């Protein structure tokens, strides 16, 4: 994966997206919040939170496929 997504390009991309979408005031507020001890603790747990939420979303998608509300080939 390192060959496909190198950390320098990824970091550059993130800086561009952050600076394009948020104001300086918003970025400063996020830096202050996520830079605090509690913010760092939240960041450390966020990948696990996102993974667990994605798994639950997948269950929801499977329910929809079984119920005929969604076909994976629709898109």
């Amino acid at each position, binding site marked *: 994966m390192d060959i496909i*997504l190198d950390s320098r390009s990824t970091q550059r991309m*993130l800086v561009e997206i*952050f600076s394009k*979408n948020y104001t300086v005031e918003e970025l400063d507020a996020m830096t202050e919040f996520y830079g605090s001890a509690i913010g760092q603790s939240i960041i450390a747990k966020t990948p696990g*939170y996102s993974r667990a939420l994605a798994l639950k979303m997948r269950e*929801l998608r499977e329910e*929809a496929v079984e119920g005929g509300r969604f076909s994976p080939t629709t898109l």
Partner: protein
Amino acid sequence: MRHALLLATMLLWPFVASAGDLDERRAAAERYEAVASTSQMILGSIDKFAEYLPQHDRATLVETMTSLVDEGKIERMAIDVMAETFTLEEINALVDFFSSAIGQSVHGKQAAFSAELLQRTVALIHDGIARARSSVR
């Protein structure tokens, strides 16, 4: 008898305390969902991501994906996962941040941010795969 009661209390206390704590975390997670709705963020991201697709594919994507979003179910899922993942202190800190004017402004832009991040990450992966393939040849 008193000793038995004391021992039982000591042994069962972690479970009782944990259940009480989980209830508090769930209540805090509900407050978080009220100020930073996950389903609204997902719906917003679908709309914003569609803007990166060719015009003729947009309506299909939005209709199909939106039909999958059961706001009530997503809200319950998000509350459960948040209460299971974060401490009460962490959830309260998130609620405080996202309740503020600046936090609300940040949350309002998260859908656009996520959609652009997804689109550009996919493009970056495609580029990386193409580079890796050409270096193998």
